[in-house]
């Protein structure tokens, strides 16, 4: 069992649910409301430092009694340790959980994918849009168990809606332009870009 689990229990008490070990990986269940605090603690506390978010995904089980789970894979690059954090959401209730994008920028598209496939809303996400299906997709959330394999609409209706979608609508110019993200880059990368020949960059001074 990963020693981080006991440290989490000592710090957060009841917010930490059960923990188990599966195939050598430790899984710890965290209450929905405490998620952001727990994640920030795991990332920043010396001795734990899970600084790399491997993946965000979700699971719905065939057993309708079981809740949906949002799964976070964490890794500490310096300590070479893994921890899997899960949040349980009642599938009949409110499917909302705090976004971890403020902690890991890389969670942006991962959470968009979970939103696209499962309909789980991430509170505080900067740009929560569908990412795999097109944005006007109206049939629901394909990886939910109540979603029929062939989709809800007839094939003709699916073709009609797919043809009506604009091929250019998937990307915003902000997404494609590194110049807009320039201010948020780390200082060393800014310096490298400034010295390089990658075209005009906005003045940061």
């Amino acid at each position: 069992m990963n020693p981080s689990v006991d440290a989490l229990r000592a710090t957060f008490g009841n917010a930490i649910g059960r923990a188990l070990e599966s195939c050598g990986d430790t899984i710890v269940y965290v209450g929905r409301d405490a998620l952001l605090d727990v994640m920030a603690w795991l990332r920043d506390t010396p001795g734990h430092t899970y600084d790399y978010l491997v993946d965000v995904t979700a699971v719905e089980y065939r057993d309708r009694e079981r809740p949906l789970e949002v799964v976070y894979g964490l890794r500490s690059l310096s300590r070479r340790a893994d921890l899997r954090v899960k949040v349980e959401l009642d599938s009949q209730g409110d499917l909302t959980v705090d976004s971890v994008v403020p902690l890991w920028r890389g969670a942006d598209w991962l959470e968009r994918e979970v939103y696209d496939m499962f309909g789980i809303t991430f509170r505080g996400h900067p740009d929560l849009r569908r990412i795999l299906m097109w944005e006007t997709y109206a049939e629901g959330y394909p990886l939910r168990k109540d979603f029929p394999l062939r989709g809800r609409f007839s094939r003709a209706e699916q073709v009609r809606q797919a043809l009506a979608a604009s091929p250019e609508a998937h990307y915003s110019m902000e997404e494609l332009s590194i110049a807009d993200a320039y201010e948020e880059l780390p200082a060393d990368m800014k310096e490298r870009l400034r010295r390089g020949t990658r075209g005009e960059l906005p003045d940061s001074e």
Partner: protein
Amino acid sequence: MKRVLETKHVSGQSPNYLLAKFQDLVDWAVNASRANSLWPMPFGTACCAIEFMATAASRYDFARFGMERQAFSPRQADVLICAGRLPFKLASVIRRIYDQMPQPKWVISMGACASTGGIFDNYAMVQGIDTIVPVDVYVPGCPPRPEGLLYGVLLLHKKIKGESLFDHVPRREEQPLDDRGLRLPPEQIDEISEPFGNSVHQFRSA
């Protein structure tokens, strides 16, 4: 023309005889040039694209059949080769590519998935690209071997050589989407997309 008609060789023939001969000659020349200098626009989405690349490479080399220049711009292409399954998200893309190609144009649907949806009978996949663009040659296989694609190209040659410039039927009219935004009537799309083979055992959605 009058003097030609009065010569011994064609006297007694209808004047249409010469005209028909002339049309045959023009058709032969035009079709031979079209068929033997096809410019393919590869639209590779999956494993079929690997076989397509093998067909284009030196061992199979479809440049032998006039497809020397691959056009990666639809505006300078004759044949759209859809190699691989087509997700619904790419439906509007392939339709736009087809619309951008100049006339005359042909489409080869390469592989089981492009032709029928193949093993992907699910919510995300177009069940045959003929619901989106008109298809001239279907190449079966999963994926087809290069010989299969070459056979499809040769069939397309045959088809092109059977066409005529002088048909009054608007053979290669632009085929815009109708006011519903579809190429075919909805019933026909549903019929084309019916499950078959193993996928009939899945539960139905619509």
